């Protein structure tokens, strides 16, 4: 079936790109996962429009785009509250809406959170590159021509033929995530936590950090108490694999939380954010404060099972 034009970008906002749940299996070639930073929000948005949870949607940050519908479509907006509007009228987030042809979906600045996700019934069709439609912005592939969206871009869908039935999809509003300005992130120590003296490990857990404005999709840079490594070791390590959530301590002692755009690194990693808390990294904004709490592997597992049960509960309640 031929692709149908569904969306036209009228203004791109600060940074709007096509993302799915990421590109795995190509780390050996230096290819990082990319993907929606708040994967939880994208999954729920997809479920709300009747898609598979892993389909590609739009990710925008801080100041969102304006988009014209080129056909009758169903959309859902999740994640940070960037004040979505349909033809200038505010619409609810975390539920599906019909956009008629020529309706305009627009956003404003973020009231809470940092990144907003838009899923479209039938998905957005861009070529799958190495098994994923996510945009790798730094290396220029995936998504739409490997780049952020810009004015006049036209997005297509292979299949948008199921909109009307899903118009009323919503779920218990008590289950909608709330994004604070002060975050508590759970970590598991290591792999190089033993390269730091006890008092510095203590500082890492007791300190309050601020997200720096020079953060981007590759990493969240933190300002706050400096973490010193043991004095008798070199400043960097032999380059090795990293994952999203790795907390690196570079030479200046200011922690950087690695996001999904990097596969290797040469700095020590004091701790790793647990999987259950990874989606939160997409919603922390510059100026927010962060604290770290150390948990066990079993606590991390229970937390992740909790997140997945939540997704299943939401999915079940929509049917």
């Amino acid at each position, binding site marked *: 079936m031929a692709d149908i034009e569904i969306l036209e970008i009228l203004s791109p906002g600060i940074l709007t790109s096509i993302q799915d749940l990421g590109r795995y299996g190509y780390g050996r*070639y*230096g290819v990082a996962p990319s993907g929606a930073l708040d994967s939880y929000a994208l999954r729920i948005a997809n479920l709300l429009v009747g898609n598979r949870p892993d389909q590609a949607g739009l990710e925008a940050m801080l100041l969102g785009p304006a988009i014209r519908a080129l056909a009758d479509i169903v959309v859902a907006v999740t994640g940070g509250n960037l004040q979505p509007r349909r033809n200038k009228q505010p619409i609810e987030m975390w539920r599906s809406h019909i956009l008629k042809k020529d309706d305009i979906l627009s956003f404003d600045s973020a009231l809470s959170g940092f990144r907003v996700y838009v899923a479209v019934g039938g998905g957005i069709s861009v070529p799958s590159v190495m098994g994923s439609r996510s945009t*790798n912005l730094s*290396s220029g592939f995936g998504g739409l021509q490997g780049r952020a969206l810009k004015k006049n871009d036209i997005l297509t869908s292979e299949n948008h033929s199921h909109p009307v039935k899903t118009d009323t999809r919503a779920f218990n509003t008590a289950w909608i995530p709330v994004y604070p300005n002060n975050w508590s992130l759970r970590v598991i120590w290591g*792999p190089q936590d033993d390269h730091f003296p006890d008092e510095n490990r203590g500082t890492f857990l007791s300190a309050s950090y601020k997200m720096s404005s020079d953060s981007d999709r590759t990493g969240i840079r933190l300002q706050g108490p400096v973490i010193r490594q043991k004095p008798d070791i070199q400043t960097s390590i032999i380059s090795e*694999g990293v994952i999203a959530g790795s907390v690196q301590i570079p030479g200046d002692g200011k922690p950087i939380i690695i996001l999904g755009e990097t596969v290797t690194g040469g700095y020590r990693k004091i701790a790793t954010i647990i*999987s259950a808390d990874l989606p939160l990294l997409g919603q922390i904004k510059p100026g927010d404060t962060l604290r770290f709490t150390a948990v066990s592997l079993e606590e991390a*597992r229970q937390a992740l099972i909790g997140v997945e049960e939540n997704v299943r509960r939401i999915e079940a309640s929509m049917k």
Partner: protein
Amino acid sequence: MGDRSLLVELGDEISPAVNQRVQELFSAIDRHRSKGILDLVPSYRSLLVIYDPLRTSLDEVKTGIKNMWNSTDQSRLPQPQTVKIPVVYGGEHGPDLQLVAQYHNLTPREVIGFHTRPAYRVYMIGFTPGYPYLGEVPDAIATPRRETPRTLVPKGSVGIAQKQTGIYPVDSPGGWQIIGWTPVTLFDPFGKPPSRLVMGDRVQFHAITAQEASQWQT
């Protein structure tokens, strides 16, 4: 590392022997395709195994790797390919060639002679897609990184950092001393595989002129 990856360390130095062990374990796990393994990132001295904690567990991954490690068989490693990489050294393509020569009291021609001598081992692919970490550069031309990294190093640039040499497959920031440029495409997202070089390959550089390079592209 965290609740969804295991960092398997097989030595604490940059050496062909340690790197070969990493490659052996990497190949064994890759062949085995155990359930729940999402990605593998082999590097100089370690292998990062990324798994889906909802489909497997750290214990299961560890046990699987121990069993595979006991049965790894070097004879099953793929025969390394030797890839010849033509390089335009110096000039606008290699802005740091002069500096590297001065650093070692050599002529640029002597630097090129040293750089093209070894068949380098591809220790790992990382940093950016398709970026090969090659070693080892002769001591005579080993040069520290630039104090201030460049914000944009053009695709194809060939650099040196201490005893490592490498090629930038895509435009990216970078701090290595850039001594030349190659017209060879090292990363193609639609290629199978996407990277021209893989871990364990050998790279042999040879000097070409800018004119030969322009013909290479056509």
